[in-house]
């Protein structure tokens, strides 16, 4: 391994976190006003949607694969304790060291301890959702350890002091020109500067990234990765990627630390057959991803000589205890649901205030933050409502997570918490309870319909209600939409008056 002559310069600005993101409607409003963001996202999601549909259509057995994927993951969730024990034994037997972390703080402390013990002052990282979830980068930097993201999009986010907005392509909200500007401004602060005269051509941008990263790959002694899958019976860990940066990190350094959520297991080697077909087609719309790195413990004289596997709970066993919500733990982080989501397409990922955006984030984040167990903050409680329940996410999910079903389930939990914590009911709760009371009998409904019909006659012009100001749902509707006025005579009143239309 080569050693750098000088330590890299420290970054000047702290990186942002999702803390302080307002509730979804507010965050979405700000995102919707950003036309550059709308254009970047609209273009990117439309492209990946079309490509995914094409490669999925090639497989006549796609539905069978989805069913198999869901069944294998359900088996994992059912037998999780035994499978995790089996994995630990297999990894240990192959020369790896297994650590258990109840939460983010424990996981971060374990990683920090391993890096310190190695004597290194920096780590290179393979793209990993689990380490973003626990905010490992921030934790390491606080301990004076530099962290270098090596996935291209992740590096763009890191260099730009930005937040990720997509599971697979965290810089999806950026276009080529924005990326060039970030490279020119930021690369030199943390290593090899961008080449002079850099254009926004993809090949030039990729070359700039390659040159910038190469010195970090060659210098690094510790790498941190996540895991796409871990095979319980062999102790094998699997990482899928497209750029080869992962392969560099997983083979060059002396010490490899892998942080994986406890649900990332598959029982046997053969189960990979299903997921290695489902994942690339769903996520990058490729028949096969360019790099699949597979390792079992350590191999003397080849690759990292120390391998640490950190098994992360961080709220997952709470999710597991919810019979409806637990299907979210089948997720293989493909991001197909983001790409088809009409809400995500317009607001982007940062509005969700979590490293897990989009439909899967709307069901995973509130659960990981404990919505089933204790009251959650307003931002978290707003996430299950960030959906029109159109169902496009369920259609594309490779492990058949019924996201709309879980959203509605979590809305119930959010409402029960709100009702339990508000001594005076909210306006919404009063309205919904009053509506339910009215709808309970046809008599009450008829009276309400007569009143609405009269109101409609007073306020409507040519049958339409226009621009009615007001707080809450009324104002929210009329800001951009008219509304057909309630009918002068309801259907049931007409039916009664005309004896089913026979006396009209």
């Amino acid at each position: 391994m080569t050693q750098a002559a000088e330590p890299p310069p420290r970054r000047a600005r702290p990186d942002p976190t999702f803390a302080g993101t307002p509730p979804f409607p507010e965050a979405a409003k700000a995102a919707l006003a950003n036309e550059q963001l709308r254009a970047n996202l609209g273009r990117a999601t439309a492209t990946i949607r079309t490509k995914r549909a094409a490669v999925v259509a090639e497989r006549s057995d796609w539905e069978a694969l989805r069913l198999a994927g869901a069944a294998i993951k359900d088996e994992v969730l059912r037998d999780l304790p035994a499978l995790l024990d089996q994995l630990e034994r297999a990894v240990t037997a192959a020369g790896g060291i297994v650590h258990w972390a109840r939460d983010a703080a424990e996981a971060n402390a374990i990683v920090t301890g391993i890096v310190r013990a190695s004597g290194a002052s920096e780590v290179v990282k393979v793209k990993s959702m689990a380490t973003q979830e626990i905010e490992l980068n921030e934790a390491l930097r606080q301990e004076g350890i530099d962290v270098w993201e090596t996935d291209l999009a992740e590096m763009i986010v890191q260099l730009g002091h930005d937040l990720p907005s997509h599971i697979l392509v965290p810089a999806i909200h950026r276009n080529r020109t924005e990326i060039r500007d970030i490279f020119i401004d930021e690369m030199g602060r943390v290593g090899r500067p961008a080449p002079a005269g850099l254009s926004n051509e993809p090949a030039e941008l990729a070359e700039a990234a390659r040159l910038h990263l190469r010195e970090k790959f060659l210098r690094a002694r510790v790498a941190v990765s996540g895991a796409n899958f871990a095979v319980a019976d062999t102790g094998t860990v699997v990482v899928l990627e497209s750029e080869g940066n992962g392969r560099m990190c997983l083979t060059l350094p002396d010490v490899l630390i892998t942080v994986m959520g406890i649900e990332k297991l598959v029982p046997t080697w053969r189960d990979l057959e299903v997921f290695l077909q489902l994942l690339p087609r769903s996520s990058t719309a490729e028949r096969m991803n360019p790099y699949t790195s597979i390792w079992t413990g350590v191999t003397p004289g080849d690759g990292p000589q120390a391998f640490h596997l950190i098994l992360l709970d961080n709220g997952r066993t709470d999710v597991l205890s919810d019979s409806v919500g637990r299907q979210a733990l089948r997720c293989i982080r493909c991001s197909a649901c983001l790409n088809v989501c009409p809400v995500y397409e317009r607001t982007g990922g940062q509005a969700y205030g979590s490293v897990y955006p989009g439909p899967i984030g709307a069901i995973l984040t509130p659960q990981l933050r404990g919505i089933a167990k204790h009251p959650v903050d307003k931002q978290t409680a707003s996430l299950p409502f960030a959906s029109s329940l159109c169902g496009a996410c369920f259609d594309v999910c490779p492990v058949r997570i019924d996201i709309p079903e879980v959203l509605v389930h979590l809305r119930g939990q959010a409402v029960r918490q709100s009702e339990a914590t508000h001594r005076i009911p909210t306006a919404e709760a009063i309205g919904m309870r009053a509506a339910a009371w009215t709808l309970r009998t046809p008599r009450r409904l008829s009276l309400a319909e007569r009143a609405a019909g009269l109101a409609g006659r007073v306020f409507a012009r040519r049958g339409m209600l226009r621009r009615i100001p007001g707080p809450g749902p009324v104002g929210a509707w009329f800001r951009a939409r008219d509304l057909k006025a309630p009918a002068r005579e309801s259907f049931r009143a007409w039916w009664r008056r005309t004896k089913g239309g026979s006396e009209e």
Partner: protein
Amino acid sequence: MRVALFITCYNDLMYPEVGRAIVRLLRRLGHDVDFPAEQTCCGQMHFNSGYQDACIPLVQSFVDAFADSDVVVTPSGSCASMVRRYHPLVAELAAEQGIDAGLSKKVAAVSPRVFELTEFLVDILGVTDVGARFPHTVAFHPTCHSTRLLGVGDRPTRLLAAVDGLTLVDLPRSEACCGFGGTFAVKNADTSVAMGLDKVDDVLGSGAEVLTAGDTSCLMHIGGLLSRRRSPVRVMHLAEILAETGIGVDARADA
């Protein structure tokens, strides 16, 4: 056949002309139509907004109202999917909470007999040409719940294609959600409107005079945006088009 109509609460209140159109259509096809007066609402708004417990009495009323009906037809893919897919879940909740242990059995008896209009016409009656005449250019928006939850597929467009004089134009990105989404339309109004305006652009680009769908709720949202833009494009429920014969007083009296 004696057909019970489940008119749905918002059609009852806001769009009674849709119910009257179904009555005309089914009678023209030679069937008896009944409106069980005890019906109110399927409970979808409460179910989808997190007030699942408030649905229990609504589902109880629903199964009582339609207990004696052989077949129930509704002009809403969304409400039909609520009944067929989620009433069993509400009944489970009622049993869990010790409110009504017998509701599941009643739901299992009633909900499979509930059909969205196009399912009923094409699958149960076996007709695609209902004898309608509507000489206009029409775009069809396949609503999310009728396509993704119910799977009505091409039944609506087969019915429309058989309407005399009707020109069906292609709606670009037709499968994209219009952004209504029940209380989503007001809880996340900005996002809902952004989605709706994209739909409006596609509708205007299609060259249609009339936009139709199997759910008035989505049409209320898209129509509200069209109206705000002072667009001459009209929204009409599928039933209204299928009921038109071009003779007499078919056209909506109070439109």
